[in-house]
């Protein structure tokens, strides 16, 4: 492991200042559960790390203006514990199969997004839930759909001087007469059931209108250079009656939309087949939640 400086700012300003000043290789540090592995494998060799643990502005989960604001430093463990996440079943399910309890206590949501691994487990649920991401730097704050944030494996739209400050999720209350009931589901297929890297992962979100699927979002992990939406598969279902035939067709299309690779964990062909199986199962599961 190469030596580096560790900055431990107490305020968001100080953190952003450091990022703005330092034009050498500088990296934010969340829970460190990816960063430390990468450092040891020499995949990254920063001169400076900015630890965000002490920055209070990046913590906390609040509900305001029909949105859930999830602070960047929110840990995976907190997603499981905090009742504010109850409406987001897919996110909860992803958190519950994430790594192991020890890692879940340190790993942060921003770290998972920041790593931009195609297999990051929080990413498909966030995409299916249509999350927005807020990025801050010394000079500006910008908000964009998370779907625009991922550019490729480990490549994002974030500039070196920017931090992820929060994630925002739209909260619709099921009590309100105008909005339709919504439901989501997530599945991770690994080589084993804990501490595994996803072979494939599937998140779906449904909005129901009687016997119809009014709206749908399907997101896939580990089967493309970045977490992706299966938009053509969604089209098959959107506005249609919930039926076995549509479901099967949508699942089939999802499996052709993705572009998995073969590696030591699974072949591309197996991954494709599993996408078809789990897209169907997750839509069924989400539908059953209504």
């Amino acid at each position, binding site marked *: *492991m190469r030596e580096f400086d560790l900055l431990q700012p107490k305020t968001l300003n100080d953190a952003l200042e450091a990022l703005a000043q330092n034009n050498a290789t500088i990296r934010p540090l969340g829970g460190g559960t990816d960063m430390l*592995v990468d450092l040891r*494998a020499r995949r990254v060799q920063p001169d400076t790390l900015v630890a965000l643990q002490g920055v209070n502005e990046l913590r906390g989960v609040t509900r305001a203006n029909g949105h859930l604001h999830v602070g960047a430093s929110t840990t995976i463990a907190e997603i499981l514990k905090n009742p504010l996440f109850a409406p987001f079943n897919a996110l909860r399910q992803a958190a519950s199969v994430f790594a192991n309890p020890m890692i879940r206590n340190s790993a942060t949501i921003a770290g998972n997004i920041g790593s931009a691994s195609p297999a990051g487990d929080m990413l498909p649920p966030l995409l299916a839930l249509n999350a927005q991401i807020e990025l801050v730097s010394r000079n500006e704050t910008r908000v964009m759909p998370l779907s625009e944030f991922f550019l490729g494996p480990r490549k994002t739209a974030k500039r070196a001087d920017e931090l992820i400050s929060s994630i925002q999720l739209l909260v619709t209350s099921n009590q309100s007469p105008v909005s339709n009931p919504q439901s989501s589901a997530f599945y991770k*297929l690994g*080589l*084993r*059931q*804990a*501490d*595994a*890297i996803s072979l494939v992962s599937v998140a779906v979100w449904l909005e129901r209108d009687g016997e119809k699927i009014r709206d749908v979002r399907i997101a896939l992990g580990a089967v493309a250079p970045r977490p992706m939406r299966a938009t053509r598969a969604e089209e098959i279902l959107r506005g249609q009656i919930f039926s076995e035939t549509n479901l099967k067709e949508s699942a089939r299309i999802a499996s052709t939309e993705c572009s998995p690779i073969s590696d*030591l*964990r*699974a*072949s591309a062909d*197996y991954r494709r*087949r*599993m996408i078809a*199986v789990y897209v169907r199962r997750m839509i069924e599961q989400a539908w059953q939640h209504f």
Partner: protein
Amino acid sequence: MNYQILGNNYQRKDGIGKVTGSETYTSDVILPRMWHARVLRSPYAHARIISIDQTAAKALGAVVLTYADVPHLKYNERIVSIPPHLFRDRTVLADKARHVGEAVAAVAAPTEQLAEKALRALKIEWEILPHYTDPADAQSENAEPIHDAVLLNGEMKPIENNVAVARTVNVGNVDEGFEHADFIFEREYLTSRIYHAQMETKSCVCDPASDGSITVYPTTQSIHNTRQLLGEIFNIPLHKVNVKRVAIGGTFGSSIQMNSIIPICVALALKAKHPVKLVSTREEDMYDHVRYQTKLKLKIGVTRDGKITAGHIQALADVGGHNIQAYALLSVLAGWSASLYKFPHLRFEGKAVYTNKTPSCAMQGFGNPQATFAMESLTDEIAHELELDPIEFKLKNYVGLGGTFWGQGPSVQSIIRSDGVPQLLHDGAQKIGWRARPKAGTQTGRYRHGIGMARGFHTSGAGAPKPGEVIDYSGAFIKINEDGTVDVVHAMMDHGGGTLEAIAKIVAEELGVPIENVGISPADTLTTVYDVVTHATRGVYAGGGAAHKAALKVKQQIFEYASRVLELQADSLVIEPDYELRQGVIYCPNFPERRITLGALAKQLQINSWGTMAAVESLRQVNCPPAFVTYFIDLTVDTETGHVTTNRAVIGSDCGTVVNPAMAIGQLEGGLSKGVGYALVEDNQWDAQTGQLTSKGFWIDGKTPAISEAPFNENIITHFSDTYEPSGPFGAKGIGEAATNPCAAAYANALYNALGIRFTELPITAEKILRALNAEENREARVEMREMEAMAVMQAAE
């Protein structure tokens, strides 16, 4: 049998320390003035070192070692085999790297950080050589030799075509046997190279003293073999080499041999003149050892009514970069494969080949999970083809009580004197609902359910009437303290399975004292007599046997001294635990009022200056009785994903007298847990192009199944046979390795029952199952097509 102590569950003596984290493992050992070591490991699979620039590392204040600085004596790390069969092919640090992760240099420095820095400062110039990941390529005509020659019994033996060792065994005349067969079955089975995945990584602390002696705290299964090897390599007389027993965090066979880091640590300590600590990282550990990968080709002839007429076994084992015990492996592969069956004629041809991969070594079962997977799969298949119940077929060809048993191979023969197999098969079949199992290949639909069965065994130790190819004996020293408590001084290691607990129980049972009064002393090589190693399922049977022998001697002394004090004939006395007095009490049943506690007796001895009641004994068991295990697995396959769920596992054990019931059950559950990983999930692949471990030594892939997918305890049904092994201490045999051996075959057979498909390659992953199902569907579709075409042709003809 009625026992006072055996068969009861007590709190483990080391239990609280282990669950509270206060137990001391090697990595917890901290000594004054201690330095820290790091090892430089080869990034290449096969490469010669041209030069190592140490200037920068030395400038940092580190001590540096390379091949040039260490003894050049070639050693074999597992001195269990006798010298004529001990293939010595390695040195403390390697002159050339034979696999990725091979240790080629080492540093020690006052802090870990500095050591790491110094390590990074070493500059190596390499000459890269062609490497081989496949034994077939390694054997090719012009292949680069991985070893030119190895040291065997004092002479250099040239290695040709990278074949480490080959062995043939012939019983009768196989050709004749096959002539008598009505059917001949032939299949090839391939197993995987899995990592032991023991909790503790290999570690060592070495403390050198000014008089040239060393004290070593290693991760090991044998303190005495470690001592002898260190003495030999560093030319230190044995009384100056003290190896301490330190608690070990699991091993699964990975520390039968003296781990390669131990002599490196010692060499550094001797050079630095400081205590040195060396703790392997998980990555380093993964480059240190794997289970032998074997390709087994079986050919079995049977008569129409299901009698085996002949067997031909061809084995190819992948040794990796160093030959730890391939000769012994080939021997046991023959034994494990053939032992349970009556083969009138048998031929075994085994070959073990060097490759540029992590060295292979014993892992829970030492070749037995591999052999049993093949043998129990093929016998299941034969039974199905002959339309016989597999249980019936197996019993029909079973060696059975009184039969000669090969066990460890042709040179280690013993007679079966206790046999729980028929009972275990009967009880297991009943518990799983064997007769109600589906007919193979008849199910359709998403979920398919199957029941499979396999049996197996492991020998309790490697003892035999005559000296064999491996060393097998133990020793124990027992003394009675002046308050009636007992010290048991025994060199054996307890890997967590409760071996030392069992030894304490055997001693308490024989001496008639409460178990709390028996202490297992800390052990080191200065104060214990020799024990070969805790391996080969020999702990209770052989190690316990030695302790039992010493206890019998001490008991004799107790009665002799008590007879003086009580004025009764020694032969008339008995001793029993008195739980109110918390003492063993000695008395004569005819005069029960004349009694004395062991504590009072021992005190009296001291007051009278009579001496100490104590004995030291060595024991070689002249048998190695098979500990049998039967597996019945009930599983469900999701044919959409290939995912297998274990519904129930019924595991039967014949370990003779059950000494530690809860721990015996734990062994069976543990055997299942390791076995499921082997059967369905675990694998280590090497990249043929680069010679790298594809997982790069990171423990992300190929892991053991998680606790969350293990069958729930209530779905694991364990049962034991009512057997008594006449040669064992209080009728006990072993259990540990037997517990896992039949697992993979039971899964494969259950999968056949569910799907009608035979799997001959481990691990049987979800992906492989799905691929096989697909191929099967396509085949069926093709058959249907052909039938339809044929019909059409017929119709057209009409």
